[in-house]
């Protein structure tokens, strides 16, 4: 698996899929590489526009300072929460051993 990024501005599907934690088959990799190159080529047209001095829009609504009061409330029932878990150990979500 490629973990080094390519130097060119072309999309490297294998590298990006690794960042996104998606195992791809060889067929998928090949198919996505071709399709996404085409799509990336298309969206790159954004660079043709004159965007100098334009402020980016992160929110379309003029919101600021939306705060909650610091009050605590009862959360979800643990049995309900753990019933959704694929695997449980000692009232915790079980995962394969984490190596640090």
């Amino acid at each position: 698996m490629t973990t080094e990024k390519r130097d060119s501005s072309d999309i490297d599907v294998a590298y990006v899929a690794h960042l996104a934690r998606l195992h791809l088959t060889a067929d998928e990799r090949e198919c996505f590489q071709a399709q996404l190159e085409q799509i990336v080529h298309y969206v790159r047209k954004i660079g043709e526009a004159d965007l100098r001095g334009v402020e980016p829009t992160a929110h379309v609504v003029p919101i600021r300072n939306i705060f909650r009061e610091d009050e605590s409330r009862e959360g979800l029932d643990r049995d309900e929460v753990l019933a959704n878990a694929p695997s449980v150990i000692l009232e915790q979500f079980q995962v394969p051993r984490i190596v640090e």
Partner: protein
Amino acid sequence: MDVKSLTLTGAGELLARGDCTSVELVTAVADAIRRTDAAIGAYLTVDEESALSQARAADEARAAGRMGRLLGLPVAVKDVLNVRGQPCTCASRILQGYLSPYDATAVARLRAEGAVMLGRTNMDEFAMGSSTENSAFHPTRNPHAADHVAGGSSGGSAAAVAAGEALAAIGTDTGGSIRQPASFCGCVGLKPSYGRVSRYGLTAFASSLDQIGPMTRSVRDAALLLEVMAGRDPMDSTAVDAAVPPYAARLREDLRGVRLGRPREYFVDGMSAEVAAAVDAATRRCRDLGAEIVEVSLPHTEYAVAAYYIIATAEASANLARFDGVRYGFRAAGATDPIDMYGKTRAQGFGAEVKRRIILGTYVLSSGYYDAYYLSAQKMRTLIRRDFDAAFERCDALLTPVTPTTAFRLGEKTSDPLAMYLGDIFTVTANLAGICGLSVPCGADAGGLPIGLQILGPAFGEEVVLSVGHAFERSRA
């Protein structure tokens, strides 16, 4: 009881007069689903038993003198919204086994007015798609022509309403996902302004673009459902604290004094002549109803699809990172460590289109590319908003096509994602600008496939958009 052409408002009147009960209504709708849904595939799950018990409760409440704007009225909900105690698959394998422990705010508000939760409608996986072919379970077919798509991503909701399998349904719209399937299936679909309806409980695709909206058989029904769902929510910081007008009561029948704009960039080469003709005819009809028609320009339209696919996929890549097999949903077997578990779970749990968009979104945010893609797209968003601001200086609402063509054939675009994306050209702009948009039926092509008229209004201008839609709809009746 014939529910095929019954509106929500009409059904409400039947219940109010005592001409039928909620149980009868729900039974009739469930019967319709049983009869037709095998051929359409609008639903993912129907919980008739639960719906009937809610209906009984509504009938008892009515008998006890209690009221509710939707008391006893069944509503179908796109499978992307959390409804307490129900699955919420988002038409994905990755949410296999997940049961919602909570209600989305929009759902809670529908319930509070007495609505009956009938079933969950099909969609493109995680709302990514324009045809409902990306459902992990089955595609939804167009009720007007079974070999054509219902549109997407809220294709199940649109088809259910059009096929008589629901009086009304809830959809979501990130780049046209309410308006486009409404147009393809011939029903009414409203994408409210960003911030009008709380997104709490809506499984996020693109957080800065998503909105929940109604899909109905009449503009009045859409107004009614919006009234119920809209308003501020302490659980969603982006739900704006603005008064919710009585939309249904304020609908107008004529358009005197209303100025409607025709954006020239929305009438392009390559679009279907029948679609153009239908929208032109609808525009003339609005003029006949008293509206003044003006030409306007939205010069940055050509960059909208590019900006949209950068922003939407970038946000999606983060929003969908939580589907990892740790806390809920599907987990792939045989993983040796957490990283392996993520890779396998997500590989097996997500479909091709979701994977493509996650990869694109991850790419545009990755080190060294942020400025060229995401930041540029956000700047383009500013320019697109300014285009609309300038247009709405000159008119109250815009009339445009919803899509360049009518519903395409199943499988026609599945191997060419870019072609599929380009079909979103007339709808993504409203999401980028945060404005509202309504799709109302305005005709059909030679093959009988519906054509939609899009009415775009300024942010929080739902009142005018609904009025234009209502007046137009009445004039065709």
